[in-house]
């Protein structure tokens, strides 16, 4: 007998945004009285934790220097801080909606600041490689339907993307893969044996830091070059293993190379990603082959897309000259912090104080920081202005992009008393724009705005 005070709502086809799999088949059971999700059907262990743990916490919506203030006061302080800084940076954005990301870019544009996303410490190197080499890729449904050779390189999906195997790439059954795993060969390349190993038919274990050499050797073998057997001494992988892999790659019907942080975060960085992308491109001479970076956060792909469409560049963008400039290593956040360039920071849905290099964290402690986050983190603790916001996909709707660029609309479960990121950022943007215009007019411009004519030639 149902308790008449019970108030359960079921949300079907909701989306989990914990990792880049962005599974949109969640069935959420929501207790509207207690404002929490009691069950998340279809979610993996990470998703279940994501849904269960994002409840409404009893905490102030806005704080300045650790003291509770009204949201309006906090917005004013945030806007003033940003407008008065000489090198304000914006960072984070991978765990929020595209609607919010767009406001963040607008703010950075108006204050002539710097904008970067967690991409720079995730698959930024793959983005750099993309700019050099390009990429043959596909959406995940193509992998499900067609891939008969699946290679994971430098990642551990069993722990980072638990449903990847089942929903998309290994056991998933598709149009030309009706038998699921039986229709596929799975290869795992990693420097250690992880929980993903059981899924693989072939395990390849290079020495750490030698992925580039292995990928380059594969390129040579695919093109028919002869390689000496001392490749094993160099990389830890026997020539026989590499030759066998090269043959399988050339003879498969539709191959896919998924790759992760093992390539981007190690010696070589974008050279590693570039070697893999180049190998994939080479293989298209023999068969149909695609590659896909496995993105970590729910909407980091959205961040790449939004920053790219609004500025032309995916991350590491600076507006100080009045137009976007791109320079990884200079305008990326580990650098703007470690080099001491940033003198104010707006950090949205990210925790660099936990995950950044020590030198960067030290600098962060010395500048005014404005954070938007759903929970207390090391970064919110050191903030000058801290906003507690609603959680995307749980309290708010919005658009997110899956790791393969497929855009999905979120279905929220329950309301939050906290405003969402988009609302806060829009308010900050409006106030920032007002302040910037006031400065502009005060600077001697006549009654009507004197703006540079856009010269189309």
């Amino acid at each position, binding site marked *: 007998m149902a308790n008449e005070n019970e108030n359960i709502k079921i949300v079907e086809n909701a989306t989990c945004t914990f990792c880049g799999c962005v599974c949109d088949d969640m069935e959420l059971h929501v207790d509207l009285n207690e404002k929490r999700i009691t069950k998340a059907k279809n979610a993996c262990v*990470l998703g279940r934790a994501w849904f269960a743990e*994002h409840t409404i916490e009893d905490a102030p919506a806005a704080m300045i220097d650790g003291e509770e203030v009204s949201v309006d006061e906090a917005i004013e302080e945030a806007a003033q801080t940003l407008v008065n800084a000489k090198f304000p940076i914006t960072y984070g954005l991978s765990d929020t909606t595209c609607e919010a990301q767009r406001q963040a870019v607008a703010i950075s544009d108006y204050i002539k600041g710097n904008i970067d996303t967690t991409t720079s410490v995730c698959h930024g190197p793959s983005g750099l490689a993309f700019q050099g080499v390009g990429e043959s890729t596909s959406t995940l449904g193509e992998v499900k339907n067609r891939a008969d050779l699946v290679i994971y390189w430098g990642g551990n999906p069993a722990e980072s993307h638990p449903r990847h195997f089942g929903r998309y790439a290994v056991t998933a059954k598709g149009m030309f893969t009706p038998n699921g795993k039986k229709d596929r060969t799975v290869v795992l390349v990693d420097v*250690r044996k992880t929980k993903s190993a059981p899924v693989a038919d072939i395990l390849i274990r290079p020495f750490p830091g030698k992925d580039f050499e292995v990928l380059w050797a594969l390129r040579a073998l695919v093109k028919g070059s002869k390689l000496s057997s001392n490749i094993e001494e160099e990389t830890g992988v026997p020539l026989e293993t590499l030759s066998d892999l090269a043959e399988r790659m050339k003879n498969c019907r539709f191959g896919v190379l998924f790759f992760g942080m093992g390539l981007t975060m190690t010696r070589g960085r974008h050279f590693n990603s570039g070697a893999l992308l180049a190998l994939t491109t080479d293989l298209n001479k023999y068969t149909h082959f695609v590659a896909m970076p496995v993105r970590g956060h729910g909407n980091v792909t959205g961040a790449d897309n939004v920053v790219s469409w609004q500025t032309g560049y995916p991350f590491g963008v600076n507006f100080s000259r009045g137009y976007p400039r791109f320079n990884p290593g200079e305008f990326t956040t580990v650098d703007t912090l470690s080099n001491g360039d940033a003198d104010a920071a707006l950090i949205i849905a990210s925790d660099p104080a936990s995950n950044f290099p020590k030198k960067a964290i030290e600098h962060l402690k010395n500048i005014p920081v404005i954070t938007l986050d759903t929970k207390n983190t090391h970064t919110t603790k050191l903030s000058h202005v801290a906003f507690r916001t609603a959680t995307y996909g749980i309290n708010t709707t919005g658009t997110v992009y899956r790791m393969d660029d497929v855009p999905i609309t979120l279905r929220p479960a329950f309301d939050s008393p906290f405003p969402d990121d988009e609302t806060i950022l829009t308010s900050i943007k409006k106030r920032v724009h007002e302040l910037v215009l006031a400065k502009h007019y005060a600077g001697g411009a006549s009654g009507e705005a004197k703006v540079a004519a856009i010269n189309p030639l």
Partner: protein
Amino acid sequence: MADKMMLIPGRTSKQGTSLNQGKFKDEYKEVTSTLEMNKDDMDKRGLVDGDKVRMWNEIGETIVSCIGKKTEDLSAGLLFIPYGPPSSQLMASDTAGTGMPLSKHMMVEIEKVK
């Protein structure tokens, strides 16, 4: 024992679930300060599961507890830790002009904490 070992920080399920609970809660702190080490390397240093070790390099240091792994899973000379504030202490900030600091494969030294 001052030979250097290679540290690989990475994602694990437990690290992912516990960070949802909150980074100041015990489980996340415990998970991100648990170091996987090759069993033979542990034996050489007189370490058993649960022992505390100091891990350091030219950037910083951190104290973590260790747990053994077979060579089949984790080769000698390699260390694995779920990433978080402890592993960040050892990360250099030089991004070689790419924006990406070397977040894996840092060389560190280990000693048992009495």
